[in-house]
Every structure is written in C-alpha cells, then in structure tokens.
C-alpha cells in the first residue's frame, strides 16, 4: 500500500510539473477533439439531413473503432516519424467515428413530421437544418463528442512515447520518475478522464432544448448508442 501513498506524495510535491504536463496533455486532446468535431459534425448533419450515406456513417465507425490506437501510431511512425502530428492523426482517427456516427443518427432520426411541418411553414432548407433539426439533434451529437473526448484524453497518454508530451512523459518514464511518479501521473489521468466525462455531460445537458428536457427518456442514455462505444487506451 505504501506505493499508493508514495504516489500521493509525488503528486503533492510535483504540482508544477504535473500542471505543465497536464496543460500539454489537454492541448493535444482539445486539438484532436476540435478537428474531429469540425470534420465530423457538418458531414454527419448533412448526410443525416438528406437521409443518405448511412453505409458511410455506420461503417466509418465500425472500421475506425476496430483500429487499435497503439498499432495505428506504430504503423504511422515510419511515415510521419516520432512527432506530435502522428499523435494528433491517431487521436482524430479515434475521435472522428463517434462524432460522425452520432451526428448522422441524431439528425437522421428527427421526427419527419416535425421536418414536414417546418417545410410547410415555408422554411428554407438552411432554416430547417438550423432551427429544427440541429436543436433536436444536439443532445445526441454532444453525447458523441463526450464519448470521443473521454477516449481522446485517455489515449493522448501514448503521446508520451511518440513525441507529443503530456502526462505520458511521466507515465512512460519510470527510470526518471520512479513508480511513485508513474502511479501519481495515473491518478491525475483518472481525475482528468472523470472530469472530461462530467464536463461534457454538463455540456450535453446545457445544449438540450428545454422542450426535450421535460420529456421522460424512453431509453436510458447509455443504451441508446451501444454501437458507438469505442476503445480508449
């Protein structure tokens, strides 16, 4: 048990180091999440709106989910080299599928009666997407972003061995930081992952339109998209 208390001591005595590493860790994570959102959400929303491309949206997620992150980093290494770019590419590959699939499913499953009514009121296509489909789809879209974010913050640790920095620098460097440092950085990592889960859950609730909040959910949220769960490192 002393290993665990030694790790706590490490965390207390190395606040500044851990803070610096956490900053890099978060910078990498947010960059990857941002790229995935910028690429995945518009594509998913457009495909969902035209009700086409389910094959693409579902299979991108199935293939993307199957790619082991460490293996992908390893395969990219001879091409991209040991660099931050390699890590970012791998994290985007990890985060993109749940973002795309959730955005697609979210817009695709908006009640067609509601969309018809909006068209009947004379809304243009852009208005239908912006004022009707998107607000109704936001909770599920953000659930996808949350899934992606939690995977990314966990997997960004691999940046430590692939030249990206972050908490992995400590976790993968037992010779310098001893077991106490390795476990201490693991504590920080666990806290970070839980914080991401809570933070993005809050964001998800915040973007849920008031009209949807009162309704009892038919299925508990975890059951809605089991197929979108993805591996994290």
């Amino acid at each position, binding site marked *: 048990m002393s290993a*665990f208390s030694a790790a706590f001591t490490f965390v207390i005595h190395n606040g500044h180091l851990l803070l610096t590493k956490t900053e890099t860790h978060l910078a990498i994570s947010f960059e990857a999440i941002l790229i995935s959102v910028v690429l995945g959400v518009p594509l998913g929303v457009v495909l969902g709106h035209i009700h086409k491309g389910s094959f693409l949206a579902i299979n991108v997620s199935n293939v993307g989910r199957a790619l082991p992150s*460490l*293996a992908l980093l*390893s*395969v990219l*290494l001879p091409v991209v080299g040991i660099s931050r770019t390699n890590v970012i590419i791998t994290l985007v590959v990890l985060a993109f599928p749940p973002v795309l699939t959730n955005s697609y499913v979210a817009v695709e499953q908006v009640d067609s009666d509601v969309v018809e009514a909006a068209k009947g009121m004379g809304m243009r296509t852009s208005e239908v997407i912006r004022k009707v489909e998107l607000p109704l789809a936001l909770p599920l879209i953000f659930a996808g972003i949350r899934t992606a974010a939690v995977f990314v913050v*966990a997997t960004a640790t691999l940046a430590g*061995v692939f030249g990206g920095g972050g908490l992995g620098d400590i976790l993968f460097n037992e010779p310098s930081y001893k077991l106490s440092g390795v476990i201490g950085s*693991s504590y920080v990592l*666990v806290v970070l992952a839980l914080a991401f889960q809570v933070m993005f859950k809050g964001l998800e609730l915040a973007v849920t339109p008031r009209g949807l909040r009162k309704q009892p959910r038919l299925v508990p949220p975890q059951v809605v998209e089991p197929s979108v769960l993805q591996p994290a490192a």
Partner: protein
Amino acid sequence: MSGAAVAAASGPVIPHYGTSDSCVLHNGAFCWHWFAQNWGSLFQPKLIQHVELTVIALVIGFAISFVLALAAHRRRWLAPPVTFVTSLLYTIPSLAAFEILVPITGLGSLTIEIPLISYTLLVLFTNTLAGLSGVSAEVRDAATGIGLTRRQMLTRVELPLALPTIVAGIRVATVTIISLATVAAYVGNEGLGQLIFDALHSNDFNTQFLGAGGLAILLALVADGFLVLTQRQLTPWATARRPV
C-alpha cells in the same frame, strides 16, 4: 538463405539481422525478407499470445456480464447501479489502470487481464440487457399463451431474439480488448504491443513497427468480420430485416 531460415526456426528468439540485407541495414520502409524470417520466432508467437489475452478477457467478461444482465432482467432495480459502476470502470484510462494495479498484482498477465475484463463489462452488460428487454410484449404474451415457463421463455424466446444485440456488444468488446491489449504490453510484456514497445526502446526498426502494428490492426478487423459472419449464420432472420 535457406540456412538462415532453418536457423531462425530452430534457434532462440534473436532477431536475425542478415548481413547482406541492405533493407535491414538502412532501415527500409518494410523488409519482407526480415519479416518472413522472423515470422516464426517473433511475430507468430506474439500474435497467438495476443489472441489468448483477448479470448480470456472476453470469456470471463462475458460470463460476468451475462449473469449480471440476467439478474437485472429479473430485478430491474439492479440495472442503474450496475450501469453506473461499469461506466465508471470504462471511463478509467487503461494505462492508468494498468499502472495502478502494478503494486498489487505485479508485472504480468493478471495486471493485464483485470482491466481488460473490466472494460468489456459495460458494453456486454448493456447490450445483453437491452437485447433481453427489447423483446416485444406481444411476443412474450404469445410465449406465455402457448404455455412456456419463465425458463423456457428465456432460452427459447428471449435469448435467440437478443442474439444480434448481444453479438453487437461482443464485437465492440472484442475490438476494444485487442486495442487495449497492445497498450497492456507496457506492463505485461505480452502480445503484439511488446514488439512495438521493444522497437521504440531499441532500434526504431520500421519493419517491426509496421509488422506488429499491421498485425494488430488486421487481427481486429478479422475478428470483427468473423463475428459479423457468425451472427448472420446464427440469426438468419435478423438480416432479413433492415440491417443496422
């Protein structure tokens, strides 16, 4: 060349850097020759180990999840607490879980398997329960109407109908474990991940990165494809409807 191949097959596990092979000397993009020479001594054993790690985690994880799902199917109040605990386990980054277990279980298979098993629980439990409770009321009524007992209802009606959802869960769990098992090599020296970490710590040999990484990716895709085909064989009625 044939002499070298025999030596690699019978000798100890020492990477054979052929003196005449310019690809290996200059760390070429991918040296097929070296890969073929070391297949039997290096890649194949690690691939088999990787499959073993995956299968063990999957079987134990499924056994636990299945029992929990059956219990929660009978007593609905069990579902929220089990979901909460399994999602909490799922959220813990695997590298952190492996490292935190090291002081307790040491460096080795147990330290690898405990987190791997715990990561299968959420998706296997959720999908098994969702499959079982997704059986429509009409079907249940019909089953009761023809005189099936609760046990018969479970084995003859609910489980077969839940099979596609359960297999969907097994697919996610399988690729998750294959992915996390590569990372687990850092604390356990087992599986394809070990070759990746070894190359990182020693010679940065491209062929070892591409070989081990490629095999892990291939293993995940093949396992996923195999499970899709198995599910179609087991439940021909499911593919007759709209596949998702």
